[in-house]
């Protein structure tokens, strides 16, 4: 149960202070993400943002599958006052606002605008095929939808949100980590949004937009966790190879590492 809606920067600041007052010493392992979420009364995505922000600041490092550790030589002076907005915080706002804007767009959209949005999706499709990305095209799609609302204030709001994301180093950093993720869900979802708009169905447009942005949140969570899972698999693989070397009777056949392997200590 989330008891407070602290921002990641509040959590980061507190952990940073704990590190600087030596409540945690250099190299010490921090509690798990789940435990930290409970302690601070925030969601796991918020803890994730805080940890990565601290990593970027050089205060912690993610070393093994199960842990985040205080850096060996954490910087003495760290400014946690001007932290950028986190991607989950931004996406939360976008879910609310872009959802409504999509609903309004569905009421007003013209055939020309549908064509034009469709062309943007085609271009995105071409890039996806080459494993290429274009944040600018993604923005053009979303702002293009906002323009269909016929409300300059709402367009301004959506553009503001996108600009905040572009200006946030933490957002860029975390989005970058999902660069190599499968592009097909996004393509499907964009298509779903456009279909709802073409059908002039406000409720469906709202839902399609919200679902899309919610999944982006999951994707970033996965992408920033993948390293830990990948590391986990590599480590287990290593261990297994070591055992197989020592016991030739054990088959070297690759085993499937179950996804249900718990990562929590």
């Amino acid at each position, binding site marked *: 149960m989330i008891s407070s809606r602290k921002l990641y920067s509040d959590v980061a600041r507190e952990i940073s202070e704990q590190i600087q007052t030596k409540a945690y010493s250099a190299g010490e392992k921090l509690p798990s993400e789940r435990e930290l979420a409970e302690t601070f009364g925030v969601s796991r995505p918020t803890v994730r943002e805080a940890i990565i922000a601290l990593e970027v600041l050089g205060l912690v490092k993610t070393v093994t599958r199960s842990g985040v550790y205080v850096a060996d030589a954490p910087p003495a002076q760290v400014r946690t006052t001007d932290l950028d907005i986190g991607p989950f*915080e931004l996406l*939360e706002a*976008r879910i*609310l*606002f872009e959802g409504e*804007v999509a609903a309004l767009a569905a009421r007003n959209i013209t055939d020309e605008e549908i064509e034009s949005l469709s062309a943007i999706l085609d271009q995105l499709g071409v890039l996806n095929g080459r494993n290429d990305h274009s944040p600018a095209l993604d923005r053009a799609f979303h702002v293009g939808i906002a323009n269909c609302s016929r*409300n*300059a204030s709402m367009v301004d709001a959506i553009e503001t949100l996108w600009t*905040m994301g572009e200006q946030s180093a933490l957002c860029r950093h975390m989005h970058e980590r999902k660069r190599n993720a499968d592009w097909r869900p996004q393509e499907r979802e964009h298509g779903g949004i456009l279909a709802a708009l073409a059908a002039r169905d406000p409720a469906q447009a709202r839902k399609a937009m919200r679902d899309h942005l919610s999944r982006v949140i999951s994707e970033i969570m996965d992408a920033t966790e993948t390293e830990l899972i990948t590391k986990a698999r590599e480590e287990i693989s290593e261990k297994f190879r070591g055992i197989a070397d020592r016991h030739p009777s054990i088959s070297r056949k690759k085993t499937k590492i179950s996804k249900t392997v718990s990562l929590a200590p």
Partner: protein
Amino acid sequence: MMEELEAEKTYQKVYRDISNKISSRVYKVDDRLPPEKELAKLYGVGRPTIREAMIALEVLGLVESRHGSGVYVTQREPPIVEHRPRFELPDIAEARLVFEVEAAGLAAVAPEEQDLDDLRVLVSTLERGGADASGAERDFHLIVARAAHNVAVQTVVRRLLDHQDAALAAQYDQDPHALPAYAPSTAYAEVLAALEQRDPPAARRAMQSLVALLVERLLEQAEAALVRRTLKDFRNRRDALIRRIAAED
């Protein structure tokens, strides 16, 4: 429609530029402005556009047409400064209605005691009415957005309120009859109650009612102001034209 807007913009550009020159004493009081033909060449526009600009300057009280000899600067500072706000009240109103409802829903999830305390103070101020009520009105919305604990939500709401202030200031400049708009204090109290109960659906409903009432008042005032301004502009232009015709006889 677009051509009309373009033409309108051009004469505005011209009269603003001349108005600035008058403010900065490039043209001093009692100076004669360059003749129409020269101004047309200078600004690269048609003579009708220059005439429009002259009428606007006359309406603003900056220049006067003197019988036979041309247009003279009469006053240095324009009595009315016409700002064209970037965003218009109907758009702002619709955006507030939609976005603030979402913000309220989020705020109701886990508002902090400080947020609730601040809102209680504001509701009291609004109940009393009086001079500080308009500040309290704006602050109420800002603090609900703050209680959502999302910097992006806060930024969007704050921008909307700023845009609204700009639009209202422009309206007030041209029409000092405008009064600040409020909803009845019970509407604010209901939003507060929903936040205290941590009830997001109730918060959304209450905020919807509050903003709807507010927006209705704002738009009524805007409509009245527009009618007054349009009449005034029309009469000024009519009078200026009649003076011209009389002067040319």
